[in-house]
């Protein structure tokens, strides 16, 4: 008897709507766009600073405008999502064997959060906020 396997096509653009697991993944991926734009804005800020007080003040005015603030709040939320979702995945990529056992995943994630907090405090101190 001849075979007639049936192939089910996966929708190329809407596949991630099928499951909340895939939607979380997409959200995590989209968060990188906000992180990238924010990084771009910071780099532009550095160039403006190098160009003199007028250029710098113009950049400051732009980032503190209502649209600038809304973007920064959004970028902050996405940056948090980006960071926490990657930190959660670290133990899968980083497997540290000590003899016959492995360093617990929670410890690896915890160290990441600790370093994140320490770096944040240093940055805030340098910025004169804390």
């Amino acid at each position: 008897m001849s075979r007639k396997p049936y192939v089910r096509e996966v929708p190329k653009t809407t596949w991630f709507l099928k499951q909340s697991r895939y939607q979380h993944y997409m959200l995590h991926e989209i968060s990188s766009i906000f992180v990238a734009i924010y990084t771009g804005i910071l780099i532009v800020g550095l160039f403006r600073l190098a160009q003199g007080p007028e250029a710098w003040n113009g950049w400051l005015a732009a980032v503190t405008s209502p649209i600038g603030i809304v973007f920064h709040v959004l970028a902050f939320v996405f940056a948090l999502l980006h960071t926490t979702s990657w930190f959660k995945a670290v133990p899968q990529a980083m497997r540290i064997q000590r003899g016959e056992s492995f360093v617990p995943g929670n410890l690896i994630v915890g160290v990441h959060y600790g370093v994140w907090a320490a770096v944040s405090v240093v940055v805030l101190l340098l910025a004169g906020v804390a």
Partner: protein
Amino acid sequence: MSQRQIELEVLRYRPEMDDKPFFQTYQVPCEEEWVVLDALNYVKDEMDRTLSYRWSCHMFVCGSCGMVINGEPKLSCKAFLRDYKGKIRVEPLANFPIERDLVIVQDDFIEKLESVKPYIVAKQEKRVEDGEYLQTPAQLKAYKQYSMCINCLLCYSACPQYGLDEKFVGPAALALAHRYNMDSRDVGRSAREHVVASHDGIWACSFVGACSVVCPKDVDPAGAIQQTKFTSAVDYVTSFLPGGKR
């Protein structure tokens, strides 16, 4: 033992008479401690002999009875009816062609599995009388988790990357390549590299991580792939150093 009437909605596809699959509903009198596979066996034995599906051990060891149950890839022998409320929908594993009813075509996976040389490539083959290849408990521990794979293909069903691009070598085959690469008795990493460290190998994985969530044996194929990416990236960088391959 209490009985419960279950509405079992099964995707049917009979290639000799159907152009496309359709759902068929069975009302199955089930015992409370049954798993979905028991309900299917009841249908096959008592209601409809034409229903086709794969199964063997009924104890999460053989990896034959993978199906999509209420949208989630599961071993049907591990899917307890008591964990489901209302109608239970059973479909063949996603991302594979349907051969018949709940039976999928596995050829693509088998070819990919073979391509990663899922066996020990020894530095020097020993004769049986020369004894075992010795290994310490710590060396065993390094790969043991990845050796638990039972080729049930739930990970391929969960992987959107494999669904979108069938050239992707996929979670289980890459996890098994990692299993042998991590084995102290094996020297086959470079022989597997052209498949594993290729565009269609580890680098096609975008780390959705669904494979590891659905794996019934906690193999964590996504972790294996990310670890291989790290090793492969180090290989690439060191290849530029003096004495490197480039």
